[in-house]
């Protein structure tokens, strides 16, 4: 069994108003050193070992459904875990 952790963020060129709002809140809470905040999504997938090319499979899932590549970037990491 593999656990895939997917991180989805808005593309760099796109203003992230949630991140901007949180940055402002951090500044007002006494953390002026924070230069930028980007907020994204985190998805965990549990995938059984029947998949031969898990990288290709996860890329396909991300591009078809899990992200909108017009506005979002993604990256993922794969860990080996015990079967559920």
């Amino acid at each position: 069994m593999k656990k895939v952790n997917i991180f989805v963020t808005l593309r760099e060129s796109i203003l992230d108003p949630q991140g901007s709002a949180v940055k402002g809140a951090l500044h007002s809470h006494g953390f002026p050193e924070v230069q930028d905040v980007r907020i994204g999504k985190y998805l965990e997938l549990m995938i059984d070992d029947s998949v031969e090319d898990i990288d290709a499979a996860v890329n396909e899932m991300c591009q078809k459904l899990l992200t909108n590549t017009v506005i979002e970037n993604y990256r993922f990491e794969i860990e080996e875990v015990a079967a559920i």
Partner: protein
Amino acid sequence: MKFAVIVFPGSNCDIDMYHVIKDELGEDVEYVWHQEADLQAFDGILIPGGFSYGDYLRCGAIAQFSTIMTAIQEAAAAGKPILGVCNGFQILTEAGLLPGALLRNQNLKFMCRTVRLKVENNDTMFTTSYEQGEEIHIPIAHGEGNYICDDKTLQSLKDNRQIVFTYASENPNGSIENIAGVVNEAGNVLGMMPHPERAVHELLGGADGLRLFQSIVKHWRESHVSHV
């Protein structure tokens, strides 16, 4: 003319759409559940606003893979008029029937009020009953209506006159170039954030939205006159 109002789990403007067609226009209309696969009996497709699949993952992301979407793709290719409002607009961009994407409103607020729109192109099957450059009043109600696309897409939208409506006075959501509604290159698929179906009678505060639906019917009658 016979319209389909597509109903997804979470659609909530479907009844408004149905009301416009049946009661204000007097045309045929049916609800079509998203698990249906056939739209051949219909002349026009309406994709209403709401929160399809709870807006889980992204607005419109899950709806794009509903069974009915294949039939909607076919109807689009056949040149039938397809109107997506609000969540319907989001679904059409996710499905690749319209370019661009919708982001959270720049001020992060859900906004619900009437805004002024400018008719940028009255030469589409959705807008012939408006004057070119006319200002109309249509309500908005959305949290993710900030339209965005890359520079190349924006240029082609301008070159092909695909920008149909823009926000006239204030830009409520931060959308690029004040865009409120766009059509596809063929001109038969319109997506817009404001709700024309909520402005179809003076009792609702205005009837500027009604002419959009009247335009669709007028266009259909004109192009089918030889068959009648």
